[in-house]
């Protein structure tokens, strides 16, 4: 796999008020590339959903680890990796109260898969990390 042209990395606290910061950053990254307005908006929403899916799992945890967002910039595509270190126990027990809940999580997943060209999710048990990797290709 070739090296990306540039890498932009961001770490945000696992708190709802910081998801907007991640969206602003990704808006800046995607706007620098040859994406249409709609494609930039798609990427922004998908990254917001990926961060929100982490928050759904850490809800109620006082000291949740930060969310890492890594943007790999290539001339023909943008890859965004959203990684968290939420414990497997927290992941196995989604919270069903309040505004969040299983339905929102499912809708978020649906949105990510529709908005991005490729989506994979990796659980790295050894490192204790979970990564959603999303790719959007620049139209030729």
């Amino acid at each position, binding site marked *: 796999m070739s090296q990306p042209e540039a890498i932009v990395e961001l770490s945000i606290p696992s708190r709802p008020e910081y998801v*907007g910061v991640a969206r602003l950053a990704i808006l800046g990254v995607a706007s620098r590339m040859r994406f249409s307005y709609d494609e930039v908006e798609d990427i922004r929403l998908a990254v917001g959903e990926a961060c929100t899916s982490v928050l759904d799992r850490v809800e109620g945890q006082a000291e949740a680890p930060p969310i890492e967002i890594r943007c790999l910039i290539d001339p023909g595509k943008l890859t965004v990796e959203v990684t968290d270190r939420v414990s497997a126990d927290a992941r196995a027990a989604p919270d069903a109260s309040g505004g969040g809940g299983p339905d*929102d999580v499912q809708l978020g997943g649906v949105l990510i898969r529709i908005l991005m060209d490729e989506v994979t999710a990796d659980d790295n048990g050894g490192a204790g990390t979970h990564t959603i990797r999303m790719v959007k290709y620049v139209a030729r």
Partner: protein
Amino acid sequence: MNLRVETTTPRENVAVVALTGEVDVYTSPRLKQEIVDLLNQGLTRIVVDTTKVEYLDSTGLGVLIGGLKRARERDGDLRLICDSPRILRIFEITGLTKIFDIHRSEAEALEALK
């Protein structure tokens, strides 16, 4: 990067909740609270105006779906005003245009609630 929620009651038993800004995981609890408060006050016919919404995510969609469910349980309804192609597309790709009645203007939504 915020959400403003303004509610008016243009007719008895009908509330129009106008949203300005972003509806996401941070701001959607405010929208949820507004809808719950209206329902508790007996205002069961609710119109949510998304004309000035710049961003809507799955959390916001979840609040609207929950509001629709609660309103219908009380023999009410929750309708949407949406004229932004961007926001409309989110309802379309999630299949929610089949669940919500979506109107182009407040006048059209109020007419439908008569």
